[in-house]
C-alpha cells in the first residue's frame, strides 16, 4: 500500500478551479516531485494534503486512513511536515527557537509545569536545544545558531524552515520551492540537502521550478497544468512526454 493516496482531489476558490480531479499515489521512501507552470495548483495541492485548506471534493489517504478535511495540527501528529513557498518563519523568535518549535509534539507542553520550571521539562528543553543546533548544522546553518530569525538572509531562512520541519521527525515532508530565490551555489547545497533528507528515510514531496534539481532528485514526477494532472511518471518518462514539453519545459527551457 502506498504511503499517500490522493483520489479525485479538487479545490475551487470561487470560480477558480485551482486543483481539478487530481489522483496519484506516493510510495514510502521516494522523492516525489510536483511540477507545473505558475498557477498550476502545486501550492494548493500541498495546502490540501497538509490540512491548510479543506478539499472541495476528493479523498486523501495516509496509510490507508482518510485524512481529507483534518486540520494541520492533526496531520502533524500523523508525521506530515512541510515548508512554505512564501516564508513562514517566526520573526519574533530566534533561529534556534524556530527549529525547537518544530519539535512541539514531541515535548511536554503542560502550562503549569512550564510556569513552575519543572526540572524534567528544563532538562528536555536543554536536550532539545542541542538537537535543534545539530539540525541547523545538518542544513548548513551553523553560523546562525545564535541569530535572531529577523536578522537572517533569505537563503538561510529557506533552510531554517527545512530544519524546523525536520525537528518534527516527519515521515512525509513537503518542500514548496526550497530553492526559489537562491543563487546557484545555494541551490546545489539545497539539492544535496534534500538528497540527505531522503536518504535518512523521509519520504519527500518536492515542488520546484529548478528542472535540474527536479530531474536529479526525483524518483517520480507529477505534472500539473491549470489544476489538472497532465501526466505522471519517472523523470525520464516525463522529460520525453510531448505534452509536458509543450506546456511546461518548452516554455521554461
Amino acid at each position, binding site marked *: 500500500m502506498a504511503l499517500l493516496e490522493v483520489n479525485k482531489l479538487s479545490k475551487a476558490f470561487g470560480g477558480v478551479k485551482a486543483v481539478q480531479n487530481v489522483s496519484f499515489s506516493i510510495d514510502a521512501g521516494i522523492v516525489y516531485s510536483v511540477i507545473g507552470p505558475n498557477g498550476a495548483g502545486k501550492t494548493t495541492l500541498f495546502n490540501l494534503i*497538509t*490540512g*491548510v485548506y479543506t478539499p472541495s471534493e476528493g479523498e486523501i489517504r495516509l496509510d490507508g486512513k482518510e485524512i481529507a478535511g483534518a*486540520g*494541520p*495540527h492533526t*496531520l*502533524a*501528529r500523523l508525521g*506530515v*511536515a*512541510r515548508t*512554505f513557498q512564501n516564508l*513562514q*518563519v*517566526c*520573526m*519574533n*523568535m530566534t533561529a534556534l*527557537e*524556530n527549529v*525547537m*518549535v*518544530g*519539535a*512541539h*509534539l514531541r*515535548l*511536554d*507542553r*503542560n*502550562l503549569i509545569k*512550564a*510556569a*513552575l*520550571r519543572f526540572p524534567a*521539562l528544563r532538562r528536555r*528543553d536543554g536536550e532539545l536545544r542541542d538537537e535543534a543546533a545539530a539540525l541547523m548544522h545538518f542544513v548548513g546553518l551553523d553560523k546562525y545558531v545564535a541569530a*535572531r530569525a529577523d536578522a537572517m538572509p533569505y537563503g538561510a531562512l529557506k533552510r531554517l*524552515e527545512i530544519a*524546523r*520541519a525536520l*525537528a*518534527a521527525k516527519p515521515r512525509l515532508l513537503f518542500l514548496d520551492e526550497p530553492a526559489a530565490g537562491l543563487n546557484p551555489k545555494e541551490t546545489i547545497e539545497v539539492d544535496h540537502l534534500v538528497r540527505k533528507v531522503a536518504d535518512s528515510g523521509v519520504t519527500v514531496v518536492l515542488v520546484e521550478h529548478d528542472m535540474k534539481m527536479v530531474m536529479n532528485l526525483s524518483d517520480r514526477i507529477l505534472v500539473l497544468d491549470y489544476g489538472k494532472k497532465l501526466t505522471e511518471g519517472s523523470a525520464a518518462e516525463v522529460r520525453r512526454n510531448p505534452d509536458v514539453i509543450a506546456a511546461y519545459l518548452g516554455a521554461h527551457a
Partner: protein
Amino acid sequence: MMNFRSPYLGLWLLVAVLAVLPFALPNAFYMDLAIRMAINAVIVLGLNLLIGFAGQISLGHAGFLGIGAYSSAVLTTHFNWHPAFAMAAGAAACAVLAALVARPIFKLKGHYLAMATLGLGIILTIVITNEGAWTGGPDGMPVPPFALFGFELYGEKHWYWVVAAVLAISVWASLNLIDSPFGRALRALHGSEVASQVVGVDVVRYKVAIFVLSAVFASLMGSVTAHYVGFVTPGVAGFFHSIELVTMVVIGGMASVYGSVLGAVLLTALPQALATFEGWETVAFGTILVFTMIFMPKGLVPTLAAKLGRKD
C-alpha cells in the same frame, strides 16, 4: 560563572528593589502607590502574555478584575464565604467565562476578540451598576478584610509584602513560561499561525488557554485590590480601566516581561504626577498611547534593550 545575559538577572534586581523599597519610602501614601503599581504589574504581565506574546487583544480585561473584586465583595458580605473561597470562586468564574467567550471567537479568523471583550467589559459594568441590591450600584460596596489561618491582612505594611511576593513569583513564572514548549508555541502562533499549525500547535487551544490564564490573573488581582482597598466601585471593571491596562502593555513593551512591570509602574504613577490636572488623565493616556505607537511601537523596554545592543 554568572550569565549576564540571562533574563532572570532582572528578576533578582526586582526582588532586591522590592525588598528595600518599604524602608526607603517616606510614608503610607507611597506604600499605597507601590502596592497599586505591583498589583497592576501582575495584571499587565498576564495581559502581555495574551497581547504581546500570543498577539491577541482584549479590550475588556478590567471586566475580569471586576468579576474578581465583586466576587470577593459579594460572596463574603452577603453569603459569609471565607475570602479565600470567594477569591477562588471569582477566578473560576472568570476562567469559565473566558473559555466560553474565547472558544467560538478563536475559531473565526481575524481580530474578533477585541470586539467581544469590549462588549463583555461593558456588559459587566452595566450588570454591576444595575444590581444595586447586591453590589451597592454606582456607589460601590465595602469589602471585609482578608484573613487566612486567623491572621488578618491589614494596612499597607501587610499588603505590601503579599503583593511584592506575588509580583516576584509572577515575573518568575512568566519568564519560565515564555521559554518553554508552551511559551514557544504561543509565540510561534503569533509569528506565523500557519507555521505553528503545521508543526502541530492546536492554535485555538493555545489562544483559549492564554486568554483564560490572563483572565484568572486579572480576577485574582481584582480580589486582592478589593480586600486591600476595602471598597469596590463599578469603575474597576470599566472601559477606561481596560484601556489603561492595554496602554501599560504597549508602553512597557509588547512581549516583554520587564516591560510589563515598567509600563505598570510608570502609568500607575502618572495620575499622581498629573494630580493638578484632575480629569485629564484620560487624555494623557490617549496621547501617550498614540505617541508610543508612532515613535516607539515596540515599547520602552524592547526599544532600550535594542539601543543597548542586547535582547531583553
